[in-house]
């Protein structure tokens, strides 16, 4: 900071606070305790302390507490400016000191003081300090302060209320009458704060919110800030499904805000309307007019706001924005590059094919001036444009290749490369040009990730082009110039040319031989392997090995390898035995985002937090561990599948029992979870007696009773283990009776009577179906797997499902009967179809892969559905079992 002040006096060289040290400043804190209080010195010291804090100097807890205590001495001062600084200091220190509650009584005294300024600031400090145990003592004063005639005090109380909603919502909710009255305050900020707090108090009561909004809409709030809030609330009420007169009034209000005299309100209304779901072109017209007005405003913020919103509108309704195109073209030269970029991006979305060349020229002029973030926005817009106007790919591709050569960070370059990749993929005519551009790019590319990605593409696409040989040079250059990752990718790419094109094979072999001398293991290994294949000496090694994509799910390969390593490793690992079936992902449920404070703004929000409702993997692992710990079940083998719990009692019954069916290779274990809801009873020796009602007979191998089921919310399990005698799965309906001994309990003392009575309780029947023996699985390519399984174990059956109303119903039922997973989105029957094929994949007990093809024909109204079910698995018996499940 020297030069500016060089000509001034020596003492002005030094800026205030220069060289200030925490240790020295902290020592000065005794000034606070001096009597009489020197207001000037104390204020100066507080300022110094706050300066240190603002600079990020850390106070230890001890230091902060010391200062806090020292500062509390200043409550005795009558000097108002000093007291103002004292409040600020206390507020800053309140979060880092211990025992801050000692100031509560002083603050309470200030809250009822006659000085407005004391009242307002004491409230603000208090709201920071008071916790749930102290708040009830002072709450009365805060509530009164809401209606204080001084707006400073009222605002302080309301804003404190908004903060306290996080921790003490119930208490703040009791202020509702005062807040309601404050809504009518003639002071604009008080009304604004009251509106915010009122909304928070009512936000979980939709009816109350809509009432609040309707009354505010009728009376129109006083400040622009309150309007912005009300606009957001109004949109929320509309989204919640307001209708009729109410919706009309709200829509009228929003539209009237477009004509408000405050820019802030006009803009808030414009973006709120444009963000509405199902907004019509007619509703957008006045919005676009407002934004168009802003486009030519001298204020950059307004231009930015307008073009940003128009850009968003253009994504869904480009036609509505076209009227602004001329204004936006003027903005390409805007000195604020953010505005220029957004204008370009919008124009690219709304522009016609004829304007592409002109636009690209304009953009080219300023790409160098903007930050990477905005360049990515432009690249993104170009990708959309390219796909929209494929004939323009030449112009756009050459633009992309130009910017690819310019300076830029990884994210930016990645965006360009991905765009070229996508364009090449979608527009076949663009392929050769695109590959050439990418070849040139890797000549001078500093990003390993991008180089390997491009080399992979060259390997898979290059051989199919008209002149494949021209790519070899580019690829081989990488082998001599790059790091090991890129070299390895280049070797793989070369090998693909050799494998695909016989006439080039000898040359490729020569190049690969050179790679065998590489300094890196991976590169050498790849080269050696590819050479072995391409030299063609071993008839087992066909070029397909290089070309065929690797389709095995890596998780399966990993678990197979792990299993292999645990057993004897004399025989070689058989990669063919690795299952291609994978566990389907559980559908993720979108939970509504939790609104902590207020409604969402009009922005494109709508947080979706993935929350799996049940986690099969965890459940399986949990059950497996639980059952494994029971000696009787330790030798049953690997748990194949556990059903979800089935309730066997009414939800209001005295004893609540649910059943989980565990399928083992040769056994079925029924787990009965029993809950006791009677507080004057304890159940002992609880077990379930099972008997066959229909279907297969039961061979009970062992039973594990629950010793004690006390009153309480936890369910205690008991088990029945049944042996399956035949290969075929045991199915049927089984009656269940809960048997136990009741002992009386005195609820008040918890004493348990020694004497017990045996008792029984009838439960609902348990069903065991074929679907209990299948596990859902997913396959990457159904047809391939279908062909691989072959027709040896195939069973075909035809059915007439007369009770089915529609194909969609039939699909649902079949999936449920078979317990398998639908592939290729075939669970969705396209509307108005009379025929449909459903593909299902799963695993049968013993980890046997099974596939099913269900050809369905709707017989018309009331005629049911004709089904031809074809099941394939390695064993015809298993296929038969499944086919009979329907």
């Amino acid at each position, binding site marked *: *900071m020297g030069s500016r002040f060089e000509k001034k006096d020596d003492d002005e060289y030094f800026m205030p606070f220069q060289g200030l040290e925490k240790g020295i400043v902290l020592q000065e804190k005794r000034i606070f305790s001096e009597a009489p209080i020197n207001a000037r010195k104390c204020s100066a010291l507080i300022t110094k302390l706050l300066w240190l804090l603002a600079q990020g100097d850390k106070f230890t807890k001890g230091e902060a507490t010391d200062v806090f205590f020292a500062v509390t001495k200043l409550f005795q001062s009558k000097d108002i400016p000093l007291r103002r600084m004292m409040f600020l200091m206390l507020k800053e220190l309140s979060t880092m000191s211990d025992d801050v509650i000692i100031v509560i009584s002083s603050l309470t005294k200030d809250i009822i003081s006659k000085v407005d300024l004391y009242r307002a600031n004491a409230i603000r400090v208090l709201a920071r300090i008071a916790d749930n145990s102290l708040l009830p003592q002072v709450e009365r004063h805060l509530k009164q302060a809401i209606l204080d005639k001084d707006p400073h005090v009222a605002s302080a109380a309301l804003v404190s209320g908004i903060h306290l909603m996080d921790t003490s919502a119930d208490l703040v909710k009791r202020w509702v009458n005062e807040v309601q009255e404050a809504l009518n305050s003639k002071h604009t900020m008080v009304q604004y704060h009251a509106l915010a707090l009122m909304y928070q108090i009512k936000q979980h009561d939709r009816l109350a919110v809509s009432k609040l909004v309707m009354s505010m809409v009728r009376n129109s709030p006083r400040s622009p800030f309150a309007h912005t809030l009300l606009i957001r609330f109004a949109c929320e009420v509309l989204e919640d499904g307001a209708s009729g007169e109410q919706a009309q009034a709200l829509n009228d209000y929003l539209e009237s805000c477009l004509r408000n005299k405050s820019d802030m309100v006009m803009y808030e209304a414009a973006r709120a309307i444009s963000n509405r779901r199902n907004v019509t072109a007619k509703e957008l017209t006045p919005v676009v007019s407002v934004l168009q007005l802003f486009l030519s405003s001298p204020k950059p913020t*307004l231009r930015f706001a307008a073009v940003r919103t128009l850009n968003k509108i253009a994504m869904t309704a480009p036609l509505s924005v076209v009227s602004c195109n001329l204004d936006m073209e003027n903005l390409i030269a805007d000195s604020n590059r*953010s505005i220029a970029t957004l204008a370009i991006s919008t124009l690219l979305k709304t522009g016609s094919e004829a304007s592409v060349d002109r636009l690209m020229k304009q953009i080219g002029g300023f790409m160098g001036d903007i930050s990477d973030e905005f360049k990515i926005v432009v690249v993104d817009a170009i990708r959309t444009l390219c796909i929209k106007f494929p004939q323009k790919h030449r112009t756009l591709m050459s633009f992309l290749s130009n910017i690819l050569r310019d300076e830029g960070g990884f994210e930016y370059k990645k965006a360009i490369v991905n765009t070229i990749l996508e364009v090449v*993929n979608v527009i076949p005519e663009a392929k050769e040009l695109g590959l050439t551009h990418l070849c040139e790019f890797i000549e001078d590319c500093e990003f390993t990730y991008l180089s390997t*990605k491009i080399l992979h593409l060259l390997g898979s696409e290059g051989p199919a082009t008209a002149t494949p040989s021209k790519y070899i040079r580019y690829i081989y250059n990488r082998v001599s110039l790059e790091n090991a990752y890129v070299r390895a990718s280049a070797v793989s790419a070369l090998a693909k040319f050799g494998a695909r094109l016989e006439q080039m094979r000898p040359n490729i072999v020569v190049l690969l031989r050179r790679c065998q001398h590489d300094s890196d293991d991976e590169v050498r290994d790849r080269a050696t392997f590819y050479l072995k294949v391409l030299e063609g000496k071993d008839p087992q090694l066909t070029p397909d090995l290089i070309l065929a994509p690797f389709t095995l799910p890596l998780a399966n390969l990993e678990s197979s390898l792990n299993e292999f390593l645990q057993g004897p490793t004399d025989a070689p690992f058989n990669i063919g035995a690795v299952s291609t079936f994978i566990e389907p992902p559980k559908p993720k449920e979108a939970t509504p985002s939790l609104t902590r404070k207020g409604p*969402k703004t009009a922005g*494109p929000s709508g*947080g979706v937090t993935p929350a799996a409702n049940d986690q099969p993997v965890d459940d399986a692992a949990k059950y497996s561990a639980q059952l494994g710990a029971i000696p009787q079940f330790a030798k049953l083998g690997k748990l194949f599948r556990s059903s979800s719990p089935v309730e066997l009692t009414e939800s209001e019954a005295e004893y609540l029992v649910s059943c989980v069916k565990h399928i083992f290779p040769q056994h079925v274990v029924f787990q009965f979870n029993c809950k006791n809801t009677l507080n004057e009873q304890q159940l002992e020796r609880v077990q379930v007696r099972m008997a066959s009602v229909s279907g297969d007979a039961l061979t009970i191998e062992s039973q594990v009773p629950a010793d004690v089921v006390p009153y309480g919310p936890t369910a205690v399990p008991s088990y029945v283990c049944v042996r399956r005698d035949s290969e075929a799965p045991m199915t049927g309906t089984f009656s269940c009776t809960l048997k136990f001994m009741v002992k009386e309990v005195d609820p008040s003392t918890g004493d348990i009577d020694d004497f017990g009575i045996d008792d029984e309780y009838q439960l609902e029947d348990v069903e065991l179906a074929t679907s209990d023996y299948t596990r859902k699985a997913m396959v990457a390519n159904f047809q391939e797997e279908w062909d691989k399984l072959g027709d040896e174990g195939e069973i075909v059956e035809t059915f007439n499902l007369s009770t089915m109303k529609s194909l969609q119903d039939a699909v649902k039922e079949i999936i449920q009967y078979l317990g398998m997973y639908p592939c290729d989105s075939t669970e969705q029957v396209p509307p108005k179809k009379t025929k449909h094929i459903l593909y299902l994949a799963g695993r049968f007990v013993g980890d046997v892969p099974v596939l099913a093809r269900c050809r369905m024909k709707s017989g018309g109204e009331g005629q049911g559905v004709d089904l031809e079910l074809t099941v394939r698995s390695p064993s015809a018996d298993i296929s038969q079992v499944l086919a009979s499940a329907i």
Partner: protein
Amino acid sequence: SGDWSGFDCDVVCVSFALVSIMSFEVVKNIIILASDGTRICSKYYGAQAQLTNEAQREWEKKLFSKTQNTSSSIILLDNDIVVYRTVSDVYFYVSGHPDENEVMLEAILGALCDTLGFSLKETPIEHRSLLEHYDLVLLTLDELVDEGLIFETDAKTIDSRMVLGLEDEGLAAIPKALPLSDQQQQELQRTINKVSTGLAGQLKQFAANWN
């Protein structure tokens, strides 16, 4: 699409969680920097208050490098929308959620600069004057925004709530007696003489009429 599967490098999908923002906490931070990018004062609210000093300074550095020597007044940076203004050798910034109403942020920025200008009276806003009246900077921020919530934006109202006009320094700034230059003294003397001569004449006139 399927054609691109099996890359040497797995494509890492980054999903962006769109977090809904709470409209009452309008301001994420307010930053005042000097012309060399050093911090004069900064206040972070809500989640940003938990950031370390280093992280906050990192952000200020980035913000400064992106906005230095630009005439524009708004920027979208790292998923924050920032409005800013340069006054003399001082940079003022107000940041909010990217979905926040930027015109509203601009109003807060305007209120900040207006209040400082109003309260500093004759003194211009510059690096030195802000340090010399640092208490005023702190109190302005405190009265403007309360934990991210807009508290008051009217410059006069904020100024009255800072009560700094009563401070000793403020009183000391008004000299007890105005020293007059010679010319002024002569001027004053002449006026007094003129008034008293006039008065004397009028008195005489009055006395004559009385009699």
